[in-house]
């Protein structure tokens, strides 16, 4: 079983567009959206949801006024100042640590389990997809990321599919750590901007920290060819393989508006061809043998 996770450090460099393009090119794969915070892959993949499940994690304290003697111990103990002067818990500030619940002399604090999102198993024209939606302003995104990846793996085993393509979240914090641990490789999508480079270096360090091999590709490379060149140099110095460049092309946005991947919309455009090259190099690096096929064929995998 192999898993490629597409990440970027900086947001908006083209992770999801590239993941969608790869899913049009992949022979057989499970598609996994691990950006549960602001998931967008479904807008192109158009999943028909087969199963949906609640995601439950963490607790929130709730004070029962009837039982509360207003002794103030909970306020003293709470390190987040989540308990107001009139003994209400601010559920957004509550960390769910349960210290107030444990120490309350009146046992007046309830501690229900939170339902903080949903996860789905779906069919798409590219193949089966596992994805999720974290509730607004909820915590535990890392746990939900781990869950969708686990489920994608299980589904791959059931269907005897040996490849998982995962769209990762931006940043270097908990959701990203949850998205890359144990992956075969990550592909870092960067752009030739001062911020793109800054964030690439941080996320590449993160991948190294967790011993996940990393590849790099540069999107919109012609916006600043000098910096694109620097990225190649930096990648080399950090021991990452740079597997291609994609030119800046508004066609990505046009394809997105049409809810299509660039391969479906304009497979032979310069950008489309660049994406194909990157895909083939990624396959080679992963040691995967997959047959290239036309996007029309991909529709046939919707019920794999």
């Amino acid at each position: 079983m192999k898993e490629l996770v597409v990440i970027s450090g900086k947001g908006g460099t083209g992770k999801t567009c590239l993941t969608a393009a790869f899913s049009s090119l992949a022979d057989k794969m499970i598609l996994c959206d691990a950006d549960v915070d602001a998931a967008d892959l479904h807008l192109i993949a158009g999943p028909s949801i087969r199963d949906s499940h609640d995601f439950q994690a963490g607790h929130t304290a709730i004070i029962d006024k009837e039982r509360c003697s207003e002794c103030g111990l909970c306020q003293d103990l709470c390190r987040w100042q989540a308990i107001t002067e009139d003994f209400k818990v601010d559920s957004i500030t509550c960390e769910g640590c349960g210290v107030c619940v444990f120490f309350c002399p009146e046992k007046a604090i309830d501690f229900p389990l939170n339902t903080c999102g949903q996860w789905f198993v779906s069919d798409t024209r590219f193949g089966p997809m596992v994805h999720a939606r974290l509730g607004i302003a909820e915590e535990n995104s890392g746990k939900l990321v781990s869950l969708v990846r686990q489920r994608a793996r299980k589904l791959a085993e059931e269907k005897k599919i040996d490849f998982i393509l995962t769209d990762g979240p931006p940043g270097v914090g908990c959701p990203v750590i949850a998205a890359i641990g144990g992956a075969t490789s990550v592909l870092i999508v960067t752009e030739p901007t001062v911020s793109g480079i800054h964030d690439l270096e941080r996320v590449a360090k993160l991948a190294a920290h967790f011993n996940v091999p990393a590849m790099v590709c540069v999107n919109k490379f012609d916006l600043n060819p000098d910096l694109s060149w620097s990225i190649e140099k930096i990648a080399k110095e950090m021991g990452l393989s740079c597997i291609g460049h994609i030119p800046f092309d508004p066609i990505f946005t046009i394809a997105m508006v049409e809810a299509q991947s660039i391969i479906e919309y304009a497979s032979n455009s310069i950008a489309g061809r660049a994406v194909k090259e990157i895909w083939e190099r990624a396959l080679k690096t992963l040691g995967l043998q997959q047959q290239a096929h036309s996007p029309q064929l991909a529709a046939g995998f919707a019920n794999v």
Partner: protein
Amino acid sequence: MIISIASGKGGTGKTTVATNLALSIGEGVQLLDCDVEEPNAHLFVRPKFKRTETVFTPVPVVDDKKCNLCGKCGEICQFKAIVVIGDKVLSFPELCHSCGGCMAVCPEDAIKETGRELGIIQKGFLNGLEFVHGKLRVGEAMSPPLIREVRTFSRDDKITIIDAPPGTSCPVIASMKDTDFVLLVTEPTPFGLHDLKLAVEAVKILGIPRGLVINRSDIGDQNVKAYASRDSLPILMEIPFDRRIAEAYSRGDMIVEMMPEFKEKFVKLYQNIKELVGL
């Protein structure tokens, strides 16, 4: 007044708006970059950093001599960060949320706190502009405590501009909570719209007045505008796509310095925000 700049989707132009807005208002402004996972504002503002401090969060250390292996610490911990197994108490500092529960519950007074490094905070200036950012240690999972630490630099007598991280979960909430106005930045594409809606829902939960900047306003489709009008989300500024802006951004140049006509637009944006907040 505290203005936070958020977006849902990454790469829509939060940092561009935050830095250009801060520079355009001029005196009495502080810019706090709360995107501590990937802070970028300093690459554009280029402040002279005067001060760097390392930020720690408290995590337990157990004195084995005092510990009687009663296991109460493991019972109270919601995060599986401390547990008694056999004749050993094991702690996993990277999982600890620093609630202090284990220390409070320990009957033998065997637990003390030490620090786990969250990252650094740097403070600097550029002319009249005060600049603060946090940088999460690579490998550290929890950004909200560092974000809250960056926000302690906020001063009542200043106009505080917060550059928030992308998304809609805890780091974003930590950046937007208790601010006076949330300025959302999006691009008019299906991804931009989808994530904008999520961000607006988050701002509604917090009950903060809000407005919208549409970046690259002439790409994509009309659905962001239709949504903004349906949801009574005021569009305060539109920045059309301009390859010169994209190239300037790539070099770390500020729009207001390269195209001075934008300064007036950002000043107007600030005045509009002030009116909406009622100041």
